[in-house]
């Protein structure tokens, strides 16, 4: 990865990736590659996940029992793990989303005056 690429993209806050995965799985079970693609696609490539980092996150979520997985075959007949949101995960997603909303709002409120000052 080059430095140029990094500058243009937003680095993910810790825990945010978890939230994005949960959000993605809300639409239905998916395998790892599909989740990565979905995150990239839905954020218009602004949030580009280094695809590998998806896996520790997935395992973390499995361990917390927020998602489960099952073996299946994908569209082109390949074996793959399909990850699925659990009810616990669903609740967690709701809570996290609320928290995220609050945090984003708070940060936005703090940052707005600086923005205005910057503009003549």
């Amino acid at each position, binding site marked *: 990865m080059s430095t140029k690429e990094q500058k243009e993209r937003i680095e993910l806050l810790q825990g945010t990736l978890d939230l994005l995965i949960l959000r993605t799985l809300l639409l239905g079970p998916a395998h790892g590659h599909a989740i990565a693609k979905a995150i990239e696609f839905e954020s218009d490539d602004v949030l580009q996940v280094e695809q590998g980092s998806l*896996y520790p996150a997935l395992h973390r979520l499995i361990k917390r029992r927020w998602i489960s997985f099952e073996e299946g075959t994908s569209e082109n007949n390949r074996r793959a793990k399909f990850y699925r949101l659990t009810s616990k995960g669903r609740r967690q997603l709701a809570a996290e989303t609320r928290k995220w909303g609050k945090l984003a709002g708070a940060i936005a409120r703090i940052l707005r005056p600086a923005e205005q000052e910057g503009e003549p």
Partner: protein
Amino acid sequence: MRRRKRMMEDLDRDIREHIERETQDNIDRGTPPEEARYAAVRKFGNVTLVKEETREVWTVTWLDELIQDVRFGLRMLRKNPSFAIVAVLTLALGIGANTAIFSVINSILFKPLPVQAPQELVDVFNTPPKDEAILQYVPLAYPDYLDYRDQNTQLTGLLAFAPTEVALERENKSELIPVEEVTGNYFQVLGLQLKLGRGFDEAQDRVPGGDPAVVLSYAAWHSKFAGDPNIIGKTITINEHPMTVVGVAPQNFHGLMRVVAPDLWAPISMDSVLHLGNPVEDRGSQWMFTMGRLKHGTSLGQAQAELQSIAARLIRMYPKSNKERSVVLLSADQVKIFPEADKAVFAASMVLLGFAGLILLIACANITGMLMARATGRRREIAIRMALGGGRLRLVRQLLTENLLLSLLGGTSALLITSLLNGALSRALASFSTSLPIGLGLTIDIDGRVLGFTLAVMLGTTFLIGLIPALKTSTQGLADTMKMETRAATGTRGKHRLLNTLVVGQLAISVMLLICAGLSLRSLWNESRVNPGFDPANMVTAAFNPSLAAYNTQQASTFYEQLTARIQALPGVESASDTDRLPLTLVVQIGSCAPEGKENDPRAKLSVATATVDTNYFKTMRIPILRGRAFDDEDKPKSTPVVIVNQTLANRFWPGQDPIGKRVVFGGEIKNYYEVVGVAVDGKYITLGEASRPYAYRAMRQVEYKDRTLVARTMGDPQAALALIRDVSRQLDPKVPVTNIETVQQATSATLLLPRAGGTMFGLFGFLGLVLASIGLYGVFAYTVAQRTHEIGVRMALGANPLDILRMVVRRGMGLALIGAVLGLIGAFALTRELSIILYGISATDPLTFVTVAVVLILVAMAACYVPARRAMGADPMVALRYE
């Protein structure tokens, strides 16, 4: 763990799949294949790192949490160092008492013999005919041993040994030392790697005088030969006979009987030199302890069956000596000292451990009390953590981790204390054994078993001290705790019920321990004041063994005649005599005795302890002769055998009659009558605590023992005479070993040894218990007073007298102390009955002891709550009110 492994195995495949998919996507988008794969890998990132991070997801958490808990626990302890120090010290004492006792018990009961494959070893005992069985297990006769050894097929080796004493001559002095006479294969069968040199030559066993060799014990090598590295090949003199040192045993080997340790081993071919007095070729003399090593794959039962068939054959061949004699095998790790003695040793060990356990219980109650007090103080912290979503289990674990830290610190200090104590104990044992006729050898150290025991005690302690407070704290309602501001108003009585119960419980236990201590100490005091029937003050004694200098009976008698005459002539010596044994020295001879005319009436027979004494004995010992006369020069070998009996014997045999002129027989000496010429006053003979027992004296001139004990009465301080005895003896013959030169008071204090050890033990336990209980009391009071600072401040602000405050706090403490004392007294009342067998001259429910202990306890308790109360009284109302 299994789950983690599976997840990690899957991960490899998942990553491969992922990259392939991405490659396919890229190709679909029109990227050339080789570039497509490269782009996919690049996009995926560092595969190794990903795997690493995923693995961490599965591994780190619990360890992480533990580290977190430990860190947090240490921080909590550091924040409150006085609590930490008191708690760790308390636990160190509590656990240390258990570890120390266990390490001693371990060295006697549990440590395997320090030899090769000790689990293969079996003890071989004969079983006597049923009707003659006093002992269930008896040693073997040497010829029987040889038959067992040579005819069996199930053992790889069979050894035999017999403890005895010999005179070791060193620097012109003779001393009596404990030794073991062993078969030549002793060290080979044990597979023992000697420290230096070699073992004995088995081929010489049947050749009298064939192998004049000794193997020194490590301890004797150091204490008697200064650890001389060139000792091998040197000649030492034993019983006037030169013997060559051929080996030195390893440091941890003390022989095969635990506790009892010889200074050296000598082969059975030297029996004539060792003068054991047990005919080697006699099947009637059963004197050898025997141990065999099972062949690989042979069971104890198989070996026993074979030896029993050999024993049966021996019965047929030697019907007279081997009548009904069978053989029994016991696994060597089951036999500690001697099968008959082991039960008592085991029981005593368990009693000691039980007391140590009580001490630990007090210590635990202490810590629980302190933890509960602290936990109450930490309720807000815990409530906040729970409000923030901390799991209850996690909280309990956090609290338990803190307790585990305490136990670990306490246990480590306990091990430290124990290792110091063990060193001191080993030294004490070593110095102790010089004043006893037997050697003591124990390897008391901290081995795996002691560590395991300590660890188990530590874990048990952790749960004991931690569970109640942890559970209680974490189940408290949140809302309740959040409203804590109101605590000063609600008072403290209800909250501390559990705390109070703990204090009362530990006070009660220490009352019981203290009463046991008090009773045994008073019993000891009583025993030391008992009139033993003679006057032990200003007397000296020494033991002589001319038999070890090859004297015959006539020579020995002449020797003693000259010896007593010369000692008596010393300035400051009033009179001197000799005897075969002193009373109260644990050396006893007991046989059956019957009055004339009732020799065949088993009901008339008495078991009577006897001594053989010379003419001046009664005068020297100041034993009053109530009727008749003492022995005199006319009681010669050829004249009428005479005996002097004590009052008890006279009354039992001839109640209401004049015993003078009556006759008795001893043991199996049929038709050998002894005529009673005198009645001596009753005394104490075996223990000071004994009830009056029948005793008889025979005349030395008629029995003529070679080895005797000298007694001499001095006019003043006996020390001067002590120094002269050896000189006098050496002038007569330097070859005769002189041992046990000491005052009679020292010599007869041996019987006080056990009660003294018991009294000291109980005293220590009681003291430890009291110290711990008062620490607990102090801790709880300091805490409750601190909790009531606010209330006290209000009271003082409203004009309460400081003295009233003091009274109020102390009264509450006294209430607890009184309840504890009363419960303890009731418990002790029920418990001390069991002690009554070892108590002398004092009732097991002696009121003085009970009252004294109760008063002592209440005084200590008063002191423990006075200090915090005093602090409360001196509190500035303003500070107290601002406490929140």
